[in-house]
């Protein structure tokens, strides 16, 4: 019988949960505020429970935007974490969010360093009908893949909760997000305790491209809306020839791509200014290995290897 290899990964000692990266996406704002309140009340109990295995930092990322219930003050904070943005000089005219990104990088990073947070969970809302969606940057990030797997049940049952307007908190969406965060922290706790999580297969959606609205050549105003047959149908396959937009004179504009793809972020209000009516993705099945936390011995050996690689 073939024994599948278990991938051994470092302990997740430092976790952060961030809300209010966009100040008008209110589930995360209220959830982090609530978690801060609970943490303050139960401070001593939490420390005893974890035995120091995991610390959870709760962060309100963009307080000025939150205060005004805006997505951002000067520029989108969630686009300010490129290397170029993080290392530049801070001057009087540096946009607020760039300064804040540098502060957050110091608090949670520095990005790419050994001292950085092991895991950051950033909470967002969308006006698109995406249910609970989990976003990561690599399909080889086994920690994220396993967390996503652990949240599958919530994901499936969340598809009916509907979208959330910016500036609004909907109780069912808040509750879904709260459950999601709790499940994630539970997984991290189990992982750190040595539980082996079996591998298997995961369906993931990988971004291919995005499509803008048709626009007026002079005014740049949009000349069509998302077609009623596409509206709210995030993650439902879009085939060549399917309706995409409906012009204001009633004409249907169809998807002319050659490949059937999965649409998402359909009609997200913040993306009008970014020239995005919807994003399109391919669905793939990825194989993920079984994982468990490294033992202390394995961690030491890994550190020594890392140090000697650096010296070379």
């Amino acid at each position: 019988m073939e024994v599948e290899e278990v991938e051994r990964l470092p302990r997740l000692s430092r976790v952060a949960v961030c809300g209010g990266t966009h100040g008008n996406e209110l589930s995360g704002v209220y959830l982090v505020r609530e978690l801060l309140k609970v943490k303050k009340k139960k401070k001593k109990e939490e420390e005893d429970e974890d035995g120091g295995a995991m610390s959870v930092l709760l962060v309100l990322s963009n307080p000025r935007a939150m205060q005004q219930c805006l997505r951002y003050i000067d520029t989108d904070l969630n686009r300010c974490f490129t290397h170029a943005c993080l290392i530049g000089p801070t001057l009087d005219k540096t946009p607020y969010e760039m300064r804040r990104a540098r502060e957050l990088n110091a608090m949670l990073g520095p990005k790419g360093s050994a001292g950085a947070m092991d895991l950051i969970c950033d909470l967002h809302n969308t006006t698109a009908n995406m249910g609970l969606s989990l976003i990561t940057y690599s399909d080889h990030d086994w920690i994220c893949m396993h967390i996503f797997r652990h949240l599958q049940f919530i994901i499936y049952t969340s598809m009916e909760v509907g979208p959330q307007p910016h500036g609004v908190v909907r109780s069912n969406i808040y509750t879904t997000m709260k459950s999601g965060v709790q499940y994630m922290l539970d997984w991290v706790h189990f992982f750190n305790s040595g539980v082996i999580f079996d591998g298997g297969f995961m369906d993931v959606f990988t971004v291919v491209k995005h499509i803008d609205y048709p626009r007026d050549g002079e005014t740049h105003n949009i000349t069509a809306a998302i077609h009623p047959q596409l509206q709210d149908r995030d993650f439902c396959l879009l085939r060549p020839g399917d309706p995409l937009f409906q012009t204001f004179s009633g004409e249907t504009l169809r998807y002319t791509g050659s490949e059937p793809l999965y649409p998402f972020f359909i009609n997200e209000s913040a993306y009008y200014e970014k020239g995005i009516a919807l994003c399109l993705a391919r669905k793939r099945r990825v194989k993920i290995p079984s994982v468990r936390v490294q033992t202390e011995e394995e961690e030491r050996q890994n550190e020594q290897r890392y140090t000697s690689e650096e010296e070379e």
Partner: protein
Amino acid sequence: MSSFSSCQSVREARRVAIFGGTHGNELSGVTLVHLWMKNGTEIQRRGVETRPFITNPRAVEKCSRYVDTDLNRAFTPENLSAPADGQLPYEVLRAQEINRMFGPKGSPDAYDVIFDLHNTTSNMGCTLILESSKDHFNLQMINYIQKALAPASCLVLLNEHPLLKYSTARSVAKHPVGLEVGPQPQGVLRSNIFESMREILKHALDFIELFNEGVEFPPCSVPVFRVSERVDYPRDANGNIMAMVHPNLQDCDWEPLNPGDPMFQTFDGKTIRYQGSGTIYPTFINEAAYYEKQQAFVATRRETLSANAVRKA
């Protein structure tokens, strides 16, 4: 039971305006008005001058509700008569300009009808907003629209409350009508919401055309929801909201809320119930723009208004 009510003579409605962008992020109205400013064929009717107009262009450009202050609260007598200097908020200056162009409010020169196009994040469907229970022209127009849209529904919100009514942009006209269609997030254009608003206006303009041609509209009854009070979110000592609209109430605009029914849910999951003395009909439930106005929903009570027969003078 009253017998015959006399037929009310009402002046012809020759000058009609359609306002979009009174709130710059309510996109159905912005889009319709831009469309009609480019090509107004669809809104032309015999004997009517119909003028589409963007009321708050700077807010539209920013895609925000307003720049300095809410334009739809700015048409107070104090604001309209304030000396125009550089210190006034943008929307107050704008209100004065709109009052000059489409009013003056309360004068015989004012526009006959103004339709003001709005969206809401609340699940209100198609709603027409009235400011007076005695405007029989408006009541008849609403009755006509409702019959034309049936079986699709279009409900009527009457805000005549002495403390809660506010000075709207449309109040400049002799017959102000608010169109409120939702749910739609701010800054988003949803095709079905857009087309619903378009259809309401089509029937409204048809009514005006018929009225101006001399058609007499017989007495009718118009069921309305009359604004009775504003209900805020529970808040802590610092003014932060402590609870959300309860899942049982969320999206249930126009449905009865009885004493004891769930109303709010705290962030740690507790239910707060409605403790009032009688059944109310909440609307504007969880409207994004009303968090800052201390309003989780508006409580209304059902009433039936009688409209006299109307005919042009």
